[in-house]
């Protein structure tokens, strides 16, 4: 929160994006547990109740399935709800609504019923919140046709993707990594596309494909590696569904070595899909097998040392890159 006047935090960016949407469109409202009086469990919505009142900053009871379903219905009824689920871990209670209704209604109704719903949720570990509050399931959600899955990593995306998501006629899930809320960045209020990856650092020896909180770890690792004259390109995937296949193949064509960094579990995660797409579309461009650095396949533990060991870190990224560059260089 040590932002200069031209900067703000990720948290503030999300809040102001919500505020702008509420001001700009009477159909928009925010609903979820403790978004109002409490100010949001991560303080994202603090102050909004005062400006917009309890109808539009709607505190819900504890009932994830119920209020996500209500969001679907409100979207069908012409509103533009932003539903906040405190963390992705609790969203499992609403998964039936998300998959069997939100993602399915348009197709199942033969194109009649659009569901312009935005669901925001916090995701990820790193705060010692243990196994029921720390998982990164955004990549898992990317399996579901009918959904769009956004993972804003930058403060600009935190602001700008929400606006675009609200303009989308289909259900969009936005995953905000818990560790990013205090990140500071330039105060920019432009809408951002909800398709397409973005190169965040140019490099030539190897490309890291990543998203969310790991973007910053990857950039820090690239910095370290640069000192050892290893030139790493860092790509922020930004959107996990649909994946930007062109960006993936472009990375392979450019650096011929790919490391995927993902805080989700490895088996069947988004890292698997990216690797499989590269297998499919860039096999002959690869000098070495695509590598994956993911969360350990364990329920995330509380103890600091265990949690740190379970998640990708700057050190492990550096080590992985070195291993790849040296072995196959």
């Amino acid at each position, binding site marked *: 929160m040590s932002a200069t006047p031209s900067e703000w935090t990720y948290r503030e960016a999300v809040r102001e994006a919500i505020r702008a949407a509420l001001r700009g469109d009477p159909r928009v409202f925010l609903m979820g547990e403790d978004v109002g009086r409490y100010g949001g469990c991560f303080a994202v919505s603090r102050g909004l109740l005062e400006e917009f009142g309890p109808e539009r900053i709607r505190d819900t009871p504890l009932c994830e399935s119920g209020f996500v*379903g209500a969001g679907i*219905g409100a979207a069908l009824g012409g509103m533009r709800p932003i539903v906040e689920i405190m963390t992705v871990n609790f969203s499992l209670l609403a998964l039936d609504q998300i998959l069997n209704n939100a993602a399915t209604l348009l197709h199942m109704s033969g194109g009649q019923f659009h569901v312009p719903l935005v669901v925001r949720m916090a995701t990820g570990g790193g705060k010692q919140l243990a196994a029921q509050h720390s998982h990164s399931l955004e990549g898992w959600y990317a399996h579901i046709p009918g959904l769009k899955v956004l993972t804003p990593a930058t403060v600009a995306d935190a602001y700008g993707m929400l606006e675009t998501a609200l303009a989308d006629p289909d259900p969009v899930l936005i995953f905000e990594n818990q560790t990013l809320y205090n990140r500071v960045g330039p105060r920019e209020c432009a809408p951002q596309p909800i398709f397409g990856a973005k190169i965040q650092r140019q490099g030539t020896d190897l490309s890291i494909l990543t998203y969310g909180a790991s973007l910053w770890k990857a950039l820090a690792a690239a910095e370290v590696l640069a000192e050892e004259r290893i030139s790493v390109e860092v790509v922020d995937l930004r959107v996990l569904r649909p994946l930007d296949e062109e960006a993936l193949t472009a990375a392979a064509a450019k650096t011929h070595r790919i490391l995927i960094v993902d805080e989700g579990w490895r088996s069947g995660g988004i890292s698997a899909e990216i690797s499989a797409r590269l297998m499919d579309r860039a096999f002959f461009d690869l000098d070495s097998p695509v590598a994956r650095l993911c969360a350990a396949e364990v329920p995330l533990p509380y103890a600091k040392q265990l949690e740190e060991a379970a998640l990708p870190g700057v050190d492990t990224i550096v080590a992985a890159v070195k291993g790849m560059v040296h072995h196959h260089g």
Partner: protein
Amino acid sequence: MNAGKNAGGPAAGVNRLDWLREMLRIRRFEEKCVELYSGGSIRGFLHLYIGEEAVAVGTVACLGPEDAIVGTYREHGYALARGVPSGVVMAEMFGKREGCARGRGGSMHLFDARTRLYGGNAIVAGGLPMAVGLALADQMQNRARVTCCVFGEGAMAEGDFHEAMNLAALWKVPLLFVCENNLYAMGTPVALELAGTDLAKQAGAYQMPAASVDGMDVDAVAVAVRAAVEAMRSGAGPFFIECRTYRFRAHSMFDAELYREKAEVALWKKRDPIPAFRERLQSEGLLTESSWGEMEAQVAEEIREAVKFAEAGTPEPVSELTRFVYSEPCP
């Protein structure tokens, strides 16, 4: 509220002959479906409403054109009563593009934007939270519309039912909960499904007004629904109605009916809502033998046409398979 007490006869302007015709249409339509299922033109799951027609007809009769319905997989009756053309419903079951979901839904997933029929939902109780949201949208946009969600008594064991009841009651949205209590959830009798079998009393836990009516009597259903809808339109908040009814047929086409006695079915068939209502209309002098005959003939003709329409339809082409996973860009 007890429907018998608070309300008199049907509202002015109501044509109860239409109700009889609607029940008959549903009955004959579904009888045809059984035939077509045996012949292979209809596939998948097929849940018949036969025996329960008074609930859909009595309910829909009290809704305005702007109101919404959220149904279950046993929703043919609602689609037909609501005015989705029988040919379009049949075409859906044939998997044709002329169907009300372009063949993607089939029997369990009838959708129709024009009449605001939001399914055809086959996750038991899964439509109820959505119905809360539809009603909330009306409330927030100051529209005097109501939403009606329908479910079986079995759905009341699902958490989604309770979450929806609580939200609706807390937020006082104009949502009518219509419970079709046909005594069984597939093969499970209500006493093994619910610890509290006085269903209307359940609503009390949410401070929601409730009624329990004879679901075999279309008049009784309509009286209760009309009162509820009128109250809701003037801001009274949600309402719960239990309709005590019975399904005459198997749960679906894959049901050996091991769980109930033939005698029980026979007993309920004596209370068939169609002959009962027909006799009532006759005794009231509103229906003659010959007008009944005409009605039967008209309905038979409609069903024949519906089948023809469905048969003449185009199978939704495979090239369209991936359409509507996402919205198409506006032109």
